[in-house]
């Protein structure tokens, strides 16, 4: 029960802090699940990878964390925690948006948040890669795939499949 409350509090908070989309809260998610003693950073990186390999929005790692911590109820509570606060906020703002959409302060706030989002995204990338890359070949694979997906329009699923395949045959 305590775990369910902790999951709801954690994801409810992350939902309202996720400026620039779900990936910006990955470092905080990782920090808190490790601090709670729910899993190691490496296990979190594995769950993140699993969520990337599933269809749908990229917030599904919350369901996997919840599942690991408290079974099916945990998965549902964590996901509801992640989607409810931001969805309610969006619905509350929908009518007002017509008024403040073109307001100068709206554009200033949005422009001001962009570099913060960039910093959070870079931190997420570094922390996830640190947790995932337990060996030099794995780190090389990360760097190579980052370059490949940056330079080409290759579908992410192909890269994920290739990574898993290289892992199975023991190449990395």
């Amino acid at each position: 029960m305590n775990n369910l409350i902790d999951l709801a509090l954690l994801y409810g908070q992350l939902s309202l802090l996720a400026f620039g989309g779900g990936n910006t809260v990955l470092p905080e998610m990782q920090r808190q699940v490790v601090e709670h003693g729910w899993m190691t950073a490496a296990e979190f990186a594995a769950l993140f990878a699993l969520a990337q390999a599933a269809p749908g929005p990229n917030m599904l790692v919350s369901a996997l964390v919840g599942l690991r911590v408290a079974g099916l109820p945990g998965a549902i509570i964590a996901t509801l925690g992640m989607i409810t606060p931001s969805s309610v906020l969006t619905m509350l703002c929908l009518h007002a948006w017509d008024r403040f959409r073109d307001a100068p302060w709206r554009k200033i706030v949005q422009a001001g948040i962009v570099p913060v989002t960039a910093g959070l995204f870079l931190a997420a990338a570094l922390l996830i890669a640190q947790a995932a890359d337990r060996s030099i070949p794995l780190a090389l694979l990360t760097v190579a795939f980052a370059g490949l997906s940056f330079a080409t329009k290759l579908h992410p699923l192909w890269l994920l499949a290739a990574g898993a395949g290289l892992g199975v045959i023991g190449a990395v």
Partner: protein
Amino acid sequence: MAAPEPTPPPSVAAIFAGFFSVGIIGFGGVLPITRRMIVEQRKWMSGKDFTDILGLCQFLPGGNVINLAAAVGQRFRGIPGALAGLAGLMCAPMAIVIILGLLYSHFQDEPAVRRAFAGLAAAASGLIITMALKIAVPIRRDLPAVAVAVLTFAAIAWLRLPLLTTMAIMAPLGIAIAWRRAR
């Protein structure tokens, strides 16, 4: 060009079905698929209206497509519509990821599964590096913005400060810089 025939607003069931189709096929980037479904296939709204409502969803915190499902559903059918959009978007991916999670926890100690996941996790972190670079590269010549990004990065990745603390300091700083520039 003649204005297109106005289409009646989608029913609650149609909102569920539309976002269900997005959830089930959306791999690695659901937004373009959502746009195609709403604007081109089902013609619920014009491209301009879509961009407009997306602007709100990107301005506010939370997953962009999740906010979009709530906002689009609400616009057409109020709270039942929003619930239908969210449920449609999330139910299939939730079921799939939970099945994957159960399979993973069952087989995670098999050596082949361990190796596959090591490779999968390394590949997934490559993808998130790419996403980060795509956001960071456009601001690289803007020195104050770079300073804000670097400070945020250091607070989170190096000092491991809580996100709430970091946002409480860095968001006002970023906005103050943008405000000075706008004057």
